[in-house]
């Protein structure tokens, strides 16, 4: 009997094992990782860099230089060899917590990581919350404007935790291909250094060299950047008679996109954007293939929210002397239709930020704004800030290289939440008061 029981048990176990094996064989293979996974902001990522210790010290010591250093890049189970990193940034350059540009294809022209050629690891040293950039870009995306994807990550260098960073999608040909379905147009980075003379689309003369490579630095077609249409656009901004302004400028620029872009920055109290306090900054200009029409792409929102809750929605448009006004925006907003669009976009930003119902986010015009602004329910902007805060808090507190204290981190997050609670009401009030 015992012998029979043993046989029965053995047969039963074998049956179970074969069934389990069969299920395992039937299970679909895990789906391959994508760039979407890499920029998934629902999780706090971990990136490990393996770099020669001497190189890491040298990169930090010479953080003002753009010298590349080789490294291995590790994310999840992906190990990418033959990768190059360098210090990056303008005002955010740091020898303590360097901002990093990661190039997957510098040493091997054809190497990509999840379809990406490069990525930025932003150090957020100018933003104690670490959240401005990510939240700001989310609002651009919600308004339907192409913007770089972002997520937060812990960064380890040679197994040592070096800080909390933002993973930022590069504005390059990959970005152009995924957002516009083309990559062979002319991409320029607006290149503003701290010592540069502020620029606000003033016409400086017909020579193209007055506009590129400074301040419009070619990112594609570097050898032949063809800045002629750019120079012509800037001349048209100045010289086109008012009645023809929209028609003429539409040959050069997507004016509606420009207005919405600027409205979003205005809602975000951005002090270093198109209407920045020091002239223009932090955007790319992309001229579509085979045309002279360009569009703006947002970049670096670390200075967003810093203008505060009560920053005037007409800041640097009509509240400064004419020589401090942005020539393009001033002329654009003289067009009633575009001025109306500016106010509509601001209103839309305010309503999205205050929306308490996720469904409302997608069609804000149907929502009841009062529901999101009063009562106990929390608006989208505050929800996003809280969610991101919870996600990064521990990593931020443990960040050994951040140039601010843990108390400053907590206080600034609190201020950001207050901004989220109060900005929409302020903006809606200003929109309502503004003549169209």
């Amino acid at each position, binding site marked *: 009997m015992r012998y029979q029981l043993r046989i029965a048990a053995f047969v039963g176990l074998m049956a179970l094992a074969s069934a389990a094996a069969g299920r395992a064989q039937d299970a679909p293979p895990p789906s391959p990782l994508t760039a979407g996974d890499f920029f998934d902001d629902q999780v706090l990522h971990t990136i490990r860099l*393996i770099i*020669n*210790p001497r190189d890491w010290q040298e990169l930090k010591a010479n953080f003002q230089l753009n010298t590349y250093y080789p490294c291995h890049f590790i994310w999840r189970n992906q190990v990418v*060899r*033959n990768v190059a990193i360098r210090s990056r940034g303008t005002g955010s350059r740091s020898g303590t917590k360097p901002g990093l540009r990661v190039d997957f294809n510098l*040493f*091997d022209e054809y190497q990509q990581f999840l379809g990406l050629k490069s990525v930025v690891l932003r150090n957020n040293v100018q933003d104690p919350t670490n959240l401005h950039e990510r939240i700001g870009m989310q609002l651009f995306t919600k308004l339907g404007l192409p913007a770089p994807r972002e997520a937060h990550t812990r960064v380890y260098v*040679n197994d040592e935790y070096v800080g909390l960073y933002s993973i930022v999608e590069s504005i390059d040909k990959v970005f152009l291909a995924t957002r516009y379905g083309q990559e062979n147009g002319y991409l320029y980075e607006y290149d503003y250094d701290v010592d540069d003379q502020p620029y606000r689309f003033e016409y400086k003369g017909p020579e193209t060299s007055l506009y590129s490579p400074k301040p419009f630095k070619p990112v594609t077609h570097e050898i032949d950047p063809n800045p002629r249409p750019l120079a012509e656009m800037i001349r048209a901004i100045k010289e086109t008679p008012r009645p023809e302004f929209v028609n003429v400028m539409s040959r050069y620029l997507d004016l509606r996109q420009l207005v919405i872009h600027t409205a979003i920055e205005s809602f975000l109290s951005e002090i270093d954007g198109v209407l920045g306090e020091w002239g223009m900054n932090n955007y790319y200009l992309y001229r579509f293939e085979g045309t002279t029409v360009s569009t703006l792409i947002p970049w670096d929102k670390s200075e967003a929210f810093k203008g505060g809750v009560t920053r005037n929605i007409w800041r640097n448009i009509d509240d400064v002397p004419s020589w401090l006004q942005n020539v393009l925006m001033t002329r654009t907003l003289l067009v009633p239709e575009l001025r109306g669009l500016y106010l509509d976009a601001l209103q839309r930003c305010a309503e999205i930020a205050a929306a308490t119902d996720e469904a409302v986010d997608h069609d804000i015009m149907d929502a009841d704004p009062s529901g999101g602004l009063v009562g106990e329910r929390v608006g989208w902007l505050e929800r996003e800030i809280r969610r991101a805060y919870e996600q990064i808090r521990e990593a931020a507190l443990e960040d050994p290289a951040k140039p601010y204290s843990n108390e400053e981190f907590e206080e600034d997050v609190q201020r950001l939440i207050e901004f989220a609670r109060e900005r929409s009401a302020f903006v809606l009030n200003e929109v309502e008061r503004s003549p169209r």
Partner: protein
Amino acid sequence: MTMKGGVIATAVLAVLAAGSPSSAQVLSFDERPTVKFGKSVRLDVTARVQGDALERSAEPVSDDGFDLARRRIGVKGAVTPYVEFEVERELGAAETWRDVFVNVRPLRAFQLRAGQFKMPFSLDQLTSATNLDFVYRSRAADMLAPGRSQGVAVHGRLVGRMFGYDVGLFRRDGESARFGTNPGAGQTGAARLTVRPFDGRRARPAGPGPTETKRRSSIRDVEFGINATSGEVAEGRYSLRGRLTSRNTFFAPVFVNGRRLRVGGDVDWQPGPFGIRAEIMRVEDQRIDQGLRGETLAPLRSDGWYISGTWAVAGRRAMKLAEASRAPAGFKGLELASRIEGLAFGSFAESEPALRNPRADHLARIDEQAWTFGVNWTLNRWARLQFNAIREQLHDAANGAPVHAASWTRVVRVQFAM
């Protein structure tokens, strides 16, 4: 050599000259202006101007057009039969001292040279720019051979001209290895041995005829050389680099640390109107602790070689006449030249696929191959015209590396030297 050193050297020469009674000064101009002070002191003034007219097929580069490649002036001479000297300075934007040295020659077999001069490595590098068969030195000699440095060397010839030696110790690596912030190797030893294995043969007393005599004398000109240098390179991105004739870099320096060892061999032969030269060299740079995790990497190997040939169209004797002529020598000085050469950088390690980053264990080999076709026309003893057409192509073994198209460079050089 610092400016100060050059000035001191020039001053010493001036004092020597001033010390001689003026009545003994004799000025002559044969090949170049020469001043003799008595029987024991001689000063030759040397000058060299080379201008290049360039055209390249590759992407537009700024040096298309006409360029004064070299403007050098100097003095050389002797004080007694036992002391020789040479001072030469490059003029223009790249103003710098070139050769500044004293050579003491108690015996032909034992001579001592001190100052700044070319380290004894590479036949092509040791050939004066005035006497090159081509507008540019071989890529190997240009990129891998050390060139000038400051040091002392003993050298001489033994058994007639059968054996030659040149052994020196230098303060640092040669100028070719020092560029930008790259210091090259530190103190470097260099040695070169040459042998003319047939030079010691005695001529047969009764030659069977002119043909046999010529064959016998030609074989006596064959010279073989071997050379090596050794020095320590500090830790850093201090390896040698690879550049095309356009000066576009195709191999940027990688991280090295440790010994830099150069070895090379060459052969030179001028049978009748023909000239044949070949040379091969390798530079091996250690990369101690240079991996991403501090591990030691496979050494960087930089290899170069060339084979060149010339043909004096009107014969060697006519060529020598042209080189000595004061008047226009017509087509006596016409020479055709061709060279094939290679220059490659890489390392071999089985630990990883071939990569192209400065800390890769397995550095993907990148190889430049070039052909040069040239016409040299020696107009007289001072003037020379050279035309070269150079075809260069890169072969990159890195994974996914692009196929590089061949590029052409056409250059005409006008040279005046005395």
